[in-house]
């Protein structure tokens, strides 16, 4: 079933790209909660040309999921109905508010409302994205459909473990955005402020990264033991941590593009660590059973056609995306130096 694996890899790549690019966009909203209107214009300017494209990765991922692995899509949309719906409404509100803020013909008091909605719904969106994702590997979803409402639709995502993954993702998104925005600032004062902010986020990410393991233990879940039993996922965790001092150094040296690449690598490592634990399972159930990619996969012919369609898509999308980023992001370094 080589196509199922290939399609799954494309899904994984889409998720990593969504986490990095979409995460930077969500994170920008979260950072604005702290910087207020000071950061507003930088963020609008930096995000406006690319934010729509950054969110397309979610569409690609979800389409792959329902076309290629419909059983997993069904679990996502039934057991996790509530957090998914909250995530989506937040996405609608923040996207609309961001656009309204940018395109309103008059910049008056209504800007305050747009900004508020954009900021807080960005936070809510990432938080619930984290909560939703956590349920896939946390082992919190019941494998049966004959249980009461709470067991089926609430406890899979409303638990300490999911909440700490949600918070961790919020911090991660803010961190990605902070690093990205470092290259978009026009003053040194702002740079200094934002780099201090980055360092605080490091501390928080370590704290809440640990909290994920502790909450897994407290909730009696299997995540912490599974993680330890996978050497490769430990390696990715260690590597992501080792990169932290390098990031510090590069922030000092203002090497924006290297910084962005390293942080992209860190996120990729964290996500890869997660994928290694999961593989080849899509969902880990509360009774310890699994839904593997082979169980969930569509018939071979669908996977084959889907893979070809995705391959064509990649050939079209990546060069276009490269062009877009080159057009709008290649002069970032100039702003700082």
């Amino acid at each position, binding site marked *: 079933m080589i196509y199922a694996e290939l399609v799954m890899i494309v899904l994984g790549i889409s998720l990593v790209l969504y986490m990095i690019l979409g995460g930077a966009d969500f994170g920008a909203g979260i950072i604005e909660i702290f910087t207020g209107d000071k950061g507003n214009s930088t963020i609008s300017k930096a995000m*406006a*040309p*690319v934010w*729509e*494209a950054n*969110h*397309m990765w*979610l*569409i*690609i991922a*979800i*389409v*792959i999921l*329902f*076309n*290629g692995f*419909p059983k997993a*899509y*069904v679990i*996502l*949309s*039934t057991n996790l*109905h509530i957090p998914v*719906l909250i995530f*989506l*409404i937040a*996405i*609608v*509100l923040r*996207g*609309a508010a*961001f*656009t*309204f803020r*940018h*395109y*309103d*013909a*008059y910049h008056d008091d209504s800007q305050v409302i747009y900004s508020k909605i954009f900021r807080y719904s960005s936070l809510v969106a990432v938080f619930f994205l984290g909560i939703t994702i956590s349920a896939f590997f946390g082992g919190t979803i019941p494998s049966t459909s004959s249980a009461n*409402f709470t067991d*089926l*639709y609430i406890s899979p995502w409303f638990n300490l473990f999911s909440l700490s993954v949600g918070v961790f993702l919020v911090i991660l998104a803010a961190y990605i955005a902070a690093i990205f925005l470092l290259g978009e600032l026009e003053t040194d004062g702002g740079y200094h402020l934002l780099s201090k902010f980055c360092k605080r986020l490091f501390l928080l990410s370590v704290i809440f990264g640990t909290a994920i393991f502790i909450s897994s233990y407290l909730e009696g879940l299997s995540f912490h033991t599974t993680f330890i039993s996978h050497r490769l996922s430990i390696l990715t965790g260690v590597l992501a941590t080792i990169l932290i001092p390098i990031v510090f150094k590069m922030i000092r040296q203002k090497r924006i593009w290297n910084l962005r690449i390293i942080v992209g690598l860190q996120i990729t490592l964290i996500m890869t660590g997660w994928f290694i634990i999961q593989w080849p399972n899509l969902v880990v159930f509360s009774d310890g059973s699994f839904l593997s990619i082979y169980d969930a996969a*569509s*018939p071979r*012919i*669908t996977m084959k*056609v*889907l893979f070809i*369609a*995705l391959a*064509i*898509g990649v050939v*079209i*999308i990546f060069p*276009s*995306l490269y*062009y*877009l980023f080159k*057009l*709008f992001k290649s002069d970032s370094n100039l702003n700082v130096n």
Partner: protein
Amino acid sequence: MEELLAARLQMAISLGWHIIFACIGMAMPFFMAFAEWKWMKTKDQVFLDLAKSWSKGVAIFFAVGAVSGTLLSFELGLLWPKFMEHAGPIFGMPFSMEGTAFFVEAIALGVFLYGWDRIAPIAHWISGLIVGISGVMSGIFVVAANAWMNSPAGFDFVNGEYINIDPIAAMFNEAWFTQALHMTFAAFASTGFAVAGVHAIMLLRGHKIKFHKEALKIALIFSLIAAFAMPITGDLAAKDVAKRQPAKLAAMEAHYHTTKNAPLIIGGIPDDVNQKVDYAIEIPGGLSFLAHGDFNAEVIGLDQFSEEERPPVAVVHFAFQIMVGLGTIMMLISILYFYMMWRKWDLINNKWWLRILAIATPIGFIALEAGWTVTEVGRQPWIIYGVMKTKDALTPMPGIQYSLFTIVTVYLMLTLTVVWLMFRQIKSIHQKYNEE
């Protein structure tokens, strides 16, 4: 509220809402690219202003359309998980291609909106064109997936199992072409009439600036040609429905009894209990001719279907009458325009002509919504025609009414805001031109 009703309402509202933004996203990029092209040729500042202010409209509508479309791609599963479990592998292919088209559209729009001073004019213009082309492609792919629900293909349904799946045959099902063709023209007709109407209102209100006059002309070119194509493509679609979904056609026409030489029923109130239509105008043999091209052809009536397999007749019949009625009005406006152009009338300064266009502002979108009501409600009680019933696809999660209320509230708020933003865009244009 009943769970099934709540879920169907939520789906209907989400789709009906998204369709408006999607259609504007399909048609309007062509308007702005056309304006930019005129600017490149004439170097007249008015066309540049027009391209820029239309592109702001496109940006707002695209963004709201994109996020509501994201919501929809999840709602399919949130509301109809059993449908997606079985249909996903079969009809997913157009969606995966739509993903690519949509992605390209987002990238090209970014280039268009922010690349004015960064790339050569011709490259900039091409990016605008790509926005439109990929927008239309996205629309066609999504409609192809919808057509599959009306005309399931690419699998065998044996003992409750979906076997011998062929995603390509599923995509190119019998209904995809007529539905996609009709829909694409509908996008241009509805957006064109709305845009032309807004600019006509502005001219009537005394803002007699060249900006509105040129805008009106461009929007009319697209909308009037599309309005002309609507009845023709609609006829193709209806003939296809007659062949594949006789219950839907019968409901559209409130045609209760199977007969030869079936009359075309215009208007009237369907009476399900007595199986007749009151107060209708009947054209003898009309339905037989329209459905099968022969006045004596037999047209299957609702009597061939058990109560459980009939769509709600009144809703489908009324929606169909509204669509056809408004479509006819749009075509008449189109004929009037071409006649008056031929007679060399000064239309742009003619108050009556502007009044007609002003009144016609919403009719394209009303017809569009009515048309979708015919397609979707006319397919009931099926979610996959003849294979799976809508009620069997419903999510097991109770309390859908709460998500329905939430969605309605959010969409209502966003609608009001978008309308308000459009007023502000227009106001800013007037201020700009008054200052000069």
